[in-house]
């Protein structure tokens, strides 16, 4: 069939017109979901998070046929922050969203997040006394006494250990009960025993070659705030004080941080450059290869560092204590953005995210630890504790240790700038072998100038 040029143009024109008509029809509400309200939900995460949210949306929509939730997914959390900021600036923010704990107070104070205090307090379920683990939940959610989001979950640092190396050395590994938590000096002595050079010598043996260590006792990162803050609070210090200022220049805080750095530089029981990111072989692989006895890592790491995925016998236990047991707890928030046109539907979705179904999904794979009291009862534990993922004593971490010793992390407005410009460089100096007392007074002073400025600016 031959087509003349004119015929071709006519054909092209009419099909373009038909396409335009179709696309307009597409903009009309779909016939099936009658008058459904569509809300957007922004967030980040790997495959597990992505699948979990999709599953939650399916269940939610089945229960709420009048609401469509559209999931806007970005793989990286830090990238998501920037995407959200630019979307807020452009007036295209999502209706509901993950909010990073470091962005939360800044966005709440800036009026971007909807005040949901009354919705939470008056809710028949969420408003019940001790629905959440308290006082930690209020500590993190309240900005000037008001709630602008609900914590998604809790995560906190603890020890992952290679049980075979402990057996070999005849040492009892740590647990989560108070009498199973090591004193700091006890921990140091055990670290010494668990570190070996290629001749089998320990760091306090004569002739120990620290350039030739084949088995390290511990990996406790000093390059970012969570693992450091756990030690600081354990030593009676504070990461952020009540006034919302950085308190890492207190003697207790500096002593705690110095102790962690000394594990590498003085005691030679921890590998250098030991942050998860900078090691070519990460702590999981090192534990699995028998080159590391203990890794201090976030509870989320249980989703890949668990009995069913490791070749060696492994277990979990609490961090050693300095003055008192402590681990820093935090996680991202779920919030409604104040620019939403559908506050009612947005609240129903947000509320759904704070019910057991959504958390169970992630808790089951070892990624999350519930922040809802009902999930910590004997009955509740059955919903998420899984053999092969959670070591035998793991539920004690959630039911006993965290409610008693967990400190909810709070990061004040201006924190991102203070951290990037002054606190992270100070952590790096510490990691590189500089003394905490030489670095932190100055860094904290500069960081607090930023924080005070941000606070006065709100």
């Amino acid at each position, binding site marked *: 069939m031959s087509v003349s040029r*004119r015929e071709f*143009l*006519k054909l*092209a*024109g009419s099909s*373009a*017109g038909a396409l335009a008509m179709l696309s307009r029809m597409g903009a009309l509400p779909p016939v099936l979901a009658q008058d459904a309200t569509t809300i957007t939900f922004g967030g980040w995460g790997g495959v597990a998070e992505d699948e979990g949210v999709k599953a939650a949306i399916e269940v939610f929509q089945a229960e709420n046929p009048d609401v469509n939730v559209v999931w806007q997914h970005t793989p990286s959390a830090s990238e998501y*922050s*920037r995407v959200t*900021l*630019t979307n*807020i*600036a452009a007036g295209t923010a999502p209706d509901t969203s993950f909010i990073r704990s470091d962005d939360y107070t*800044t*966005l709440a104070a*800036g*009026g*971007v997040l909807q005040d949901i205090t009354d919705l939470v307090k008056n809710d028949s379920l969420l408003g019940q006394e001790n629905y959440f683990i308290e006082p930690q939940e209020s500590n993190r959610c309240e900005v000037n006494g008001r709630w602008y989001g609900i914590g998604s979950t809790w995560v906190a640092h603890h020890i992952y250990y290679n049980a075979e190396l402990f057996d070999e050395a005849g040492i009892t590994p740590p647990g989560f009960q108070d009498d199973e938590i090591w004193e700091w000096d006890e921990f140091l002595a055990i670290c010494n025993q668990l570190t070996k050079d290629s001749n089998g010598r320990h760091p306090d043996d004569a002739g120990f070659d620290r*350039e030739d260590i084949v088995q390290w006792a511990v990996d406790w990162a000093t390059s970012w705030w969570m693992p450091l803050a756990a030690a600081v609070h354990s030593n009676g210090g504070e990461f952020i004080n009540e006034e919302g200022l950085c308190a890492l220049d207190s003697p207790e805080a500096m002593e705690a941080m110095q102790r962690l750095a000394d594990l590498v530089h003085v005691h030679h029981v921890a*590998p*250098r*450059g030991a942050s998860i990111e*900078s*090691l*070519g*072989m990460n702590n999981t692989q090192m534990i699995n290869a028998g080159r590391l006895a203990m890794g201090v890592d976030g509870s989320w790491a249980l989703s890949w560092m668990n009995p069913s995925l490791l070749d060696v016998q492994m277990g979990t236990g609490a961090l050693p204590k300095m003055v008192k047991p402590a681990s820093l707890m935090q996680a991202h928030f779920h919030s409604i953005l104040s620019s939403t046109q559908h506050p009612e539907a947005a609240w129903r979705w947000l509320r759904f995210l704070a019910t057991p179904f959504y958390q169970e999904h992630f808790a089951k794979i070892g990624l999350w630890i519930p922040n809802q009291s009902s999930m910590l009862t004997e009955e509740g534990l059955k919903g998420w504790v899984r053999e092969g993922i959670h070591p035998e004593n793991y539920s004690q971490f959630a039911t006993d240790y965290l409610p008693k010793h967990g400190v909810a992390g709070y990061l004040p407005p201006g924190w*991102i*700038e203070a951290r*990037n*410009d002054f606190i*992270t*460089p100070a952590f*790096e*100096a510490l*990691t*590189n072998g500089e003394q905490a007392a030489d670095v932190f007074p100055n860094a904290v002073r*500069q960081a607090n100038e930023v924080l005070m400025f941000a606070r006065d600016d709100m």
Partner: protein
Amino acid sequence: MSLVDGSLWLTQQYNRLSLKRRRTLMGYVFITPFILGFVFWFLVPAVVAAYLTLQRWNLISPPRFVGMYNFNRMLNDPLLLQSLKVTVLFSAISVPLGLVFAFFLASLINNKFRGIAVFRTIYFLPSIVPAVANAILWAWLFNTEFGLINFVIRALGGPKIGWLQDPNWVMVAFVILTVWGVGGSMIIFLAGLQGIPKIYYEAAEIDGAGRWQRLLNVTLPMMSPIIFFNLVIGFINSFQIFVSALLITNGGPQNSTLFLVLYIYRTAFGSQKMGYAAVLSWLLFAILMILSFFVFRYIGSRVYYENPDE
């Protein structure tokens, strides 16, 4: 009027134009992509950035006028000084080194023997590796405990170097990974080398010039416009180093790789200070303008052009 009628009408109008006008019109059509890109990705952002220099804007609340506040901040910012210091240092080391290395490689592959195309490809390949892949690759190579580079150094009896953790070594690491990607300048040098007429070398040889004299008196003068071009582009690129710094060290350790563009990015999207970030962007622009001016004035005047009138 339907689409078909519309296009017919346009065609008729076009056919009525004189040949000269048609050519002019076509010229504009062809440069439209550039013009649009220039307007939307340069002119509009530059104007907005100029406006923002006088505002405080955190992307959350509307911008508000603060006069010279952002400029005053610049005068008392230890991190700006730090970022300028590391950027200038990086530029001063990596640009000359990159030029010499690219020139050296270009001379090597400016020979004719079997398989030369393979060598040319091999040396050029690194420059087309995407920036992100490049950054990840080098982060692995430089890894202190398990990286290939330290593995080799230690096998030869050397010390374990904290390439990305030690503030004194990290700049060396960045220079190495930058110089590794000189394939682009190398190709430009190669084109230049091949454009030098053989007769000059023959004449020099007859006059008794050795290898070294031929390089100094024939190759370098003939290549000077190309060296100059690579120098200017090299400076501009080195001042804009960003992706590798963001991905490998994110400015660390201890701000020793806090290059200016990374600091601008962090000020804008981390600290949410768009106004101050705009001031820093204009500062970068001013630095590059002034630098280019001096380079053209003092180095450009020494460049030899064979046909200066063309």
